[in-house]
């Protein structure tokens, strides 16, 4: 019987293999395509690292956290103006160093506990504490008295924030800053419930409990994040019942899913497909401004860029219209100043120069480098690949036509940042995206001289600009304030430590099933405003 026994062993072996491969298909094959119709599904290219509002710092995570948490204020979808959220109203003293916020009653976290002033005190102190490892807390909350000492680990208490009673929050600033409130719509300034954060059973970064229009119900890493409408939300209810962020790393796959009707919107368009998708009638194309500016930066302390004429020669040679329309295929649009058009208080057309190679030639001659002769070897550094690389190549070729030879070198983002902060480059291309839609966050960190060594990467110092930015920060009247900021912007452009090239733009495609596609000027898909047809 040996033969039979051996044969049956082999048969069992094959049968087991077959079972592993095929049986699950038969057992579970009937799928579960039971998605309810009032669901909005969108494709994101990466998994959030954290959904703790204190830690979110990338578009994907901020877009979700913004709808899980409501801070003191929010931003108007179209204009980015500050609008009330948990705070019903607020006022400041005359020199803009003390703010009092009056909180709405009856706002609840999704665990049922009421949001009180103490939750903000806790949230802000926690966000700034070194253990939280937040990359945005200090950028947003820096003006608050004691923020620097807390972030540096010198104290464990944020002295400038206090709950006068359950519904009154008092904030004292280190320096005057009339526009302080406009920073507070960032998730990092949202309240968090202490008992949930300190619940050892669930990591808050993966199980956030908030007070926003949505509640997180499922998060499978690198697969999908599911949000459900918060039935107890104090504000205007969202139209959709559920929002699903599917993590689809390959943009071409995401577009295929969109066309097959499996996702309703795609945030990242595949490289080089902008034009094709714009003309594709089976999908809808959206393009809107983002609060980012791309510019050519100089280290104004290093030769030859310590010479204003050399910087001007470069500035007159920047063909930003060609770069925006041809090189970047309309993904970005020409900059008309430092502050992007989507920021409240933007002033149009403040550039003191345009593309004119004759002016470049003239400036070079005045600087003592006629036709580019005698210029030292120069390298233009840029981070990453994609638009930055394309822009750098276009700049290189235009400069060459004017006799200016530059090498271009692309670097990994981390290495680029290290070298930029250590002062190791004197000519570079970067993009600045502000954390909040305020003029201040485009001008103060970049050009106020106390930021040299950190965000003032140009080593730029002009006492007049410092004074204007200081005056703007302490001016309580919004028109007066904007006036100071605008004047500072014009002065900076005249000194030219950098040349703005393009403003960022978000381009997305979405399905005709989406009846109202709402995108905020901050770059978010407005999950609370979007509507889908329920068929």
């Amino acid at each position, binding site marked *: 019987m040996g033969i039979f026994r051996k*044969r049956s062993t082999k048969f069992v072996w094959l049968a087991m*293999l077959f079972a*592993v*491969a095929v049986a*699950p*298909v038969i057992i*579970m*094959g009937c*799928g*579960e395509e039971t998605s309810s119709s009032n669901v909005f599904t969108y494709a994101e290219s*990466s998994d959030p*690292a*954290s959904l703790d509002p204190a*830690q979110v*710092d990338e578009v994907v995570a901020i877009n979700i956290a913004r709808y899980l948490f409501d801070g003191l204020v929010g931003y108007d979808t179209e204009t980015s103006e500050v609008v009330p959220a948990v705070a019903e109203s607020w006022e400041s003293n005359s020199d803009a160093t003390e703010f009092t916020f009056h909180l709405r009653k009856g706002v609840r976290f999704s665990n049922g506990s009421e949001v009180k002033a103490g939750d903000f005190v806790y949230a802000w102190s926690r966000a700034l504490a*070194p253990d939280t*490892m*937040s*990359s*945005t807390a*200090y*950028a947003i909350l*820096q003006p608050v008295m004691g923020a*620097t000492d807390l*972030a*540096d*680990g010198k104290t464990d208490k944020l002295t400038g924030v206090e709950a006068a009673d359950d519904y009154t929050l008092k904030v004292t600033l280190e320096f005057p800053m009339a526009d302080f409130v406009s920073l507070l719509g960032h998730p990092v300034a949202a309240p968090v419930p202490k008992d949930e954060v300190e619940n050892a059973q669930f*990591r808050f*970064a*993966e199980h956030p409990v908030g007070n926003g229009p949505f509640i997180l119900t499922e998060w*499978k*890493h*690198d*697969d*999908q994040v599911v949000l459900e409408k918060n039935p107890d939300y104090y504000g205007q209810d969202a139209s959709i019942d559920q929002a699903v962020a*599917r*993590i*689809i*790393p*390959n943009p*071409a*796959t995401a577009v*295929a*899913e969109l*066309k*097959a009707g*499996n996702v309703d919107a795609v945030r990242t368009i595949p490289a080089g497909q902008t034009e094709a998708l714009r003309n594709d009638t089976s999908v809808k194309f959206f393009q809107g401004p983002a609060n980012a500016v791309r510019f050519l930066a100089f280290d104004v302390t290093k030769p030859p860029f310590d010479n204003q004429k050399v910087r001007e020669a470069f500035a007159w040679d920047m063909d930003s219209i060609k770069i925006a329309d041809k090189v970047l295929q309309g993904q970005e649009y020409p900059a008309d100043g430092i502050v992007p058009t989507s920021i409240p208080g933007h002033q149009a057309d403040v550039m003191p120069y345009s593309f004119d190679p004759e002016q470049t030639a003239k400036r070079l001659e005045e600087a003592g480098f006629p036709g580019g002769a005698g210029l030292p070897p120069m390298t233009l550094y840029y981070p990453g690949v994609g638009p930055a690389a394309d822009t750098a190549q276009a700049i290189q070729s235009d400069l060459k036509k004017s006799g200016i030879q530059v090498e271009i070198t692309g*670097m*990994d*983002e*981390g*290495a680029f*940042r*290290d070298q930029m*902060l250590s002062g190791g480059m004197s000519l570079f291309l970067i993009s600045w995206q502000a954390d909040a839609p305020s003029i201040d966050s485009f001008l103060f*960190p970049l050009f106020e001289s106390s930021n040299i*060594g*950190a*965000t003032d990467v140009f080593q730029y110092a002009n006492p007049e600009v410092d004074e204007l930015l200081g005056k703007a920060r302490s001016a309580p009247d919004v028109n007066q304030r904007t006036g100071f900021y605008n004047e500072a912007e014009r002065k900076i452009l005249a000194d030219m430590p950098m040349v703005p090239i393009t403003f960022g733009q978000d381009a997305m495609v979405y399905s005709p099933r989406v009846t109202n596609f709402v995108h905020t000027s901050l770059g978010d898909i407005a999950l609370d405003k979007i509507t889908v047809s329920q068929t």
Partner: protein
Amino acid sequence: MPTTRFIFYRLLQMLLVLFGTVTVLFFVIYLLVPGDAAQAALGNHATPEALENLRRELGLDRPVWVQYGIYLQHLAQFDLGTSQELQRGVGGIILEYLPATIYLTLAALTLETLFGVGWGMLMALRRWPRLEALSSVTSALLLALPVFFLGMLLQYVFASRLGILPISGTGGWNPLNLVLPAITLAAAQTAIIAAVTQSSLSQEMDKPYILAARARGLTRAQAMLKHGLRNVSGPVVTILAIDLGTLLGGAMITEIVFSWPGMGRMVYNAALFRDVPLVIGTVLVLVIIFVVINTIVDILYGWLDPRVRAGEQANG
């Protein structure tokens, strides 16, 4: 006992491999990957003092060999450390991603085995000139097509055009979602296994024991299944075992094309963020799996091929 000694040497070998892996990876990542984990965590606005504090806390201010020593010490206590980017335990992260990877790997291996061996057997059964031409063209195509391209081609044909299979994602572990990524992953290896099976089987089929079996009245196919196949299992199993290692760690491109939440994508992102503990932890786990599998395979050889056993007994 030879078996215990065998296992003892195997374990010793495994420890050496693991130690080498940790050492090489640690220094390669430390020296070659640019950027600073503290700056990455705190962002551009961080004060120099906050950066210093965090570097001290993470141990980044110490000399690299001290950091290496600390890491080894934790490892000896089975502590893989905490991911610097995700701020949670490396062990937990790996456990989260491992099931999707194993699921896809097993599916691809199954496809490779069934189709590769089947294809090889068919070609070894007898000479079919037309089929042989088709076979070598198919084989060349499967080996030459880049994974990225093959994946998107399958997506386009079977999902976008014909609409019979899902485009990407796990679909809540729907097995239909597994089909296209498994085919993509298995394609090139199927061709290799087919070629190896065919060439070794063809040689076996001319040997006297097959002729003897034929003389007993078995058909050529029966003789192949009954006697020939078992004698070529060695090379095929060797390829499969090596594959298992590459599949577990190297399915990144397939995972990206099909939005599959596996370890390849995870470790790729970890490397981009210079997340040293997560990269080393993941690679270590993969190496352990790989070495364990290979040990099992070595034992399997004996079971599958009596000649190996006979040889061992003769030597031992």
